[in-house]
């Protein structure tokens, strides 16, 4: 979970590092802490540290963590030779390490040698059958080979054992959405909201899925969750504001032929409030696009 101050700090450090200023080690540590995926920059600057023996020895015991980070970034950028060299160095230093074994299997995955990687993971699982990372890598391999149903099966088995893993639930929801199985995705997001109700991003994703499924009750529920997101973010989520406007117009369209009590569900005040808040935000941040937004909102209200 990256907060706003952390994000500004990350961007600031990134600009500094890219423009030749110092602070490379701080940037790399921040990337490691926040678990963001910035493989090209990590590869370029991590290699510049590793190739310089003076800077490398200045790191002390953190040097090996840097080797691991650069190896994974190299695999992501498809520089497999760099990754191979890093893993060779790590293997020389830690010959019997499970962590290095996982990195080697990851390299096999990156090369596309699926059967060898599968064999490596099974052998690692024999030593340690409850290793979460290896189970997740099996899911990732199924996903990378283009077999989403297999990935779903593995992930469901994993979640029966490790029910509290938020990342896994999120991954399952995203796979369901990519397969257009929206009801199951909604179930996954409900699980996530139950365990972390203060995180507005889950409410937002759930509202999106409900809006996609459609139907009057789902639209009303989606509007409720968009409103919850706005509440939790203090009105700073543009997507939720737009969601309320769209939900309002969709509900009004669906309940055109109904009687009075359903018409009350349209809640026009909420829609107009959201519209004013949106226009204010656009005026502040992107005044060139304000006309576009106003015409879009006007067409929504008419339909």
């Amino acid at each position, binding site marked *: 979970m990256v*907060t706003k101050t952390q994000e500004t700090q990350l961007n600031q450090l990134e600009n500094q590092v890219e423009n030749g200023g110092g602070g490379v080690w*701080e940037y790399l540590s921040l990337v490691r802490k926040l678990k963001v995926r910035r493989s090209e920059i990590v590869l370029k600057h991590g290699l510049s540290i590793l190739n310089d023996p003076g800077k490398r020895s200045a790191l002390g015991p953190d040097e090996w963590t840097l080797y691991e980070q650069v190896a994974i970034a190299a695999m992501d950028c*498809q520089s497999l030779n*760099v990754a191979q060299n890093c893993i060779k160095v790590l293997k020389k230093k830690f010959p019997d390490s499970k962590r290095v074994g996982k990195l080697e299997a990851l390299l096999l995955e990156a090369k596309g040698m699926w059967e060898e990687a599968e064999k490596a993971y099974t052998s690692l699982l024999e030593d340690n059958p409850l290793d*979460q990372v290896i189970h997740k890598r099996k899911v*990732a391999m199924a996903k990378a080979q283009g077999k989403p149903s297999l990935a779903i099966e593995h992930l469901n088995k994993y979640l029966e054992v490790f029910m509290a893993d938020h990342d896994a639930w999120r*991954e399952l929801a995203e796979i369901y959405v990519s397969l257009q199985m929206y009801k199951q995705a909604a179930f996954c997001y409900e699980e996530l909201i139950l365990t972390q109700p203060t995180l507005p991003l889950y409410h937002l994703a759930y509202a999106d899925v409900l809006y996609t499924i459609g139907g009057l009750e789902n639209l009303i529920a989606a509007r409720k969750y968009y409103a919850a997101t706005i509440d939790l973010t*203090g009105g700073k989520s543009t997507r939720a504001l737009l969601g309320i406007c769209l939900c309002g117009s969709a509900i009004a369209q669906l309940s055109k032929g109904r009687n009075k009590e359903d018409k009350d569900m349209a809640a026009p005040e909420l829609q107009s409030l959201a519209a004013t808040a949106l226009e204010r935000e656009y005026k502040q941040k992107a005044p060139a696009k304000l006309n576009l937004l106003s015409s879009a909102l006007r067409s929504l209200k008419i339909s």
Partner: protein
Amino acid sequence: MPFLLTPLIVVFYSNSILGGEISQRENSDRESNFEKKRKRELLKMNLGFVVGVFGILILSHAAYSTIQYRGLLKIMEEEFSRPPMNVVLELIIGVALCLWAALTLPGKFLSIHPDSDENRAVSLPDNSEFMIFNHRGRLFPPQIDMKF
């Protein structure tokens, strides 16, 4: 009077530790901005500690003089309504100093608004444990980076 010397000793000791920390870090490639911030924070904490100790000393001195005044009134067989004006003044000063020290000593207060910039989640972590390498970036390798 040795009471008053202990805060000064604490200040000098912590400053010498601080000096040792800074000279150690000068060798590695760290940002001086973070160092300056931490030094300022530590100095403020030291000042807060000293002021707090002074505040507590003043309060205990006021308590002692009130007890003395009450004893005096018992000898003169008068009612004890409130301590004399200078003791009240001392009390107010002591409370003010202790309050300032209590607010300065803990350092930076954390924000409790869920939508403040420190607490607002802008993005979820990128799920690097499920990361796949089979993406379109595979076709765009970066420039050749030699590794020894």
